[in-house]
């Protein structure tokens, strides 16, 4: 990573920023000359479920991919549990670019479910779920498999443990992907349009699984979705993005029921008309 934070000394000497679980601090992300995130600031509290909405290209996926370490920031700092993320502290208190070990420690806390599921086709359903717990967390096989079967039961696929991913419908694959992410016991779960690739009749099952997860766990969730009713049901807060900036933010009832910004109103009307 070639970039340095805007002011390393100042950042490092600052005490723990807050109780925030995730904090974006003046984050800049560019692809070539295209500035996707322009000095973005926002934070998410522990256990909070936040939905990101906004038009295509507004940078929602980029935010999740930065958190998953699939992209690197150009400037600014991301904090997770008060640890700088793209940078790490030296013993002297300086910040320097993160190495692989530091990134791995951060990733350990974060799970992600992708729009296209991305199950491993060379592994059966059960192994998709147990692979990382066994080989990354070092759990023993029996324990990992027992937990995987519990999770499969929870997502309604208790009888498909031995299937190949290619033998499952999209909705079933996505539920396996959710189980796979949960098997790593993430503190933070990132969901990027997890129902967008599904046939309409398969969407409900996936969303119901996620409603259960929201109800029964205290996992911090960052959700990108066009399913407005779902967002209303599960999120504590909604952030409306446009051009990599937050246009409006507030509780779902306010954003969906009574948005103040003209841009939000226009976006929500467009989404409704699509249905």
């Amino acid at each position, binding site marked *: 990573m070639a970039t340095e934070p805007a002011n390393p000394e100042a950042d490092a000497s600052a005490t723990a920023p807050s109780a925030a679980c995730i904090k974006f601090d003046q984050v800049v992300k560019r692809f070539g000359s295209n500035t996707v995130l322009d000095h973005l600031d926002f934070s998410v509290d522990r256990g909070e479920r936040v939905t990101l909405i906004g038009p295509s290209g507004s940078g929602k996926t980029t935010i999740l991919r930065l958190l*998953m370490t699939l992209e690197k920031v150009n400037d600014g700092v991301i904090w997770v549990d008060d640890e700088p993320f793209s940078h790490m502290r030296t013993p002297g208190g300086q910040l320097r670019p993160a190495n692989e070990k530091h990134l791995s420690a951060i*990733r350990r806390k974060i799970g992600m479910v992708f729009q296209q599921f991305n199950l491993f086709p060379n592994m059966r359903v059960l192994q998709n779920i147990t692979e990382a717990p066994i080989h990354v967390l070092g759990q023993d096989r029996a324990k990992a498999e027992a937990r995987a079967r519990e999770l499969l039961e929870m997502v309604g696929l208790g009888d498909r443990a031995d299937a190949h991913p290619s*033998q499952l419908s999209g909705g079933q694959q996505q539920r396996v992907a959710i189980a796979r*992410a949960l098997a790593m016991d993430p503190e933070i779960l990132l969901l990027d349009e997890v129902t967008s690739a599904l046939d309409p009749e398969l969407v409900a099952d996936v969303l119901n699984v996620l409603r259960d997860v929201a109800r029964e766990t205290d996992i911090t969730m960052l959700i990108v979705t066009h399913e407005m009713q779902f967002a209303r049901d599960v999120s504590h807060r909604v952030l409306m993005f446009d051009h990599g900036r937050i246009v409006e933010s507030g509780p779902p009832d306010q954003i969906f029921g009574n948005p103040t910004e003209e841009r939000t109103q226009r976006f929500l009307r467009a989404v409704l008309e699509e249905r």
Partner: protein
Amino acid sequence: MDTFFHQLDLVLPRFWSGVWLTVEATLLGGALAFVLSFVLGLMLRSETLVLRGLARFVVEFFRGTSIFVQLFFLFYALPGLGFQLAPLFCGVLAFGLNYGAYGAEIVRGSINSIPAPQWEAGVALNMTAGQRMRRVILPQAWARMIPQFTNLLIQLLKDTPLLSLILMADVTYVMQQVRQASGNSIAAYGLVLLVYLVLAYLLTLIMNLLEMQAKAKLGEGRGVRGLFTARTAPGGAGSPGGEGVVGP
């Protein structure tokens, strides 16, 4: 025709040793090529410039200079520098390096053809780079490599008559002698053709079984075991075709 069988009878032990040499050179050369394909192919993808550059040089060198000349060089020129190599060793080395260079591109290309989201899913599960490669990417890439490796292996088989250039009696060489002694070109060369056809078919058969097995791991087709079980057993929902196809 009688002279032909008589001559053949006389050289029969040498015929079989010729066939064996052809098989031996193909399998040993193929094995070396296989190992080099992975070593060079992975080096071609390395982030370290030196490793990448070295692999690129080796690959371009052996693809760009003829195997014919390499054999001569190894066998006739190296002794001048003080290295006397056994003929079979020269042959296996030349075949291995040549086909390893082509194989390296197969390995590299097959790995690159696995979509990026598979790597990303590995990152999201906090797998190390090595785990992502070994446990996720290579098993998928392997299924794509096999048919291309099959082609190389058949080509290698068909290159083995070059061994006669370094004084080795492969099956083609032996049958040339039979032809000269008997005067029956049709029978002599017909038999050689048949030998290569059978060998190529056997290699293809084995490689196809490997491919079926690799694909079955990906949930495609019914796998090798599917060949021996009744067709009525359903392969599960959405298992596409490809079953039972063996042979060139």
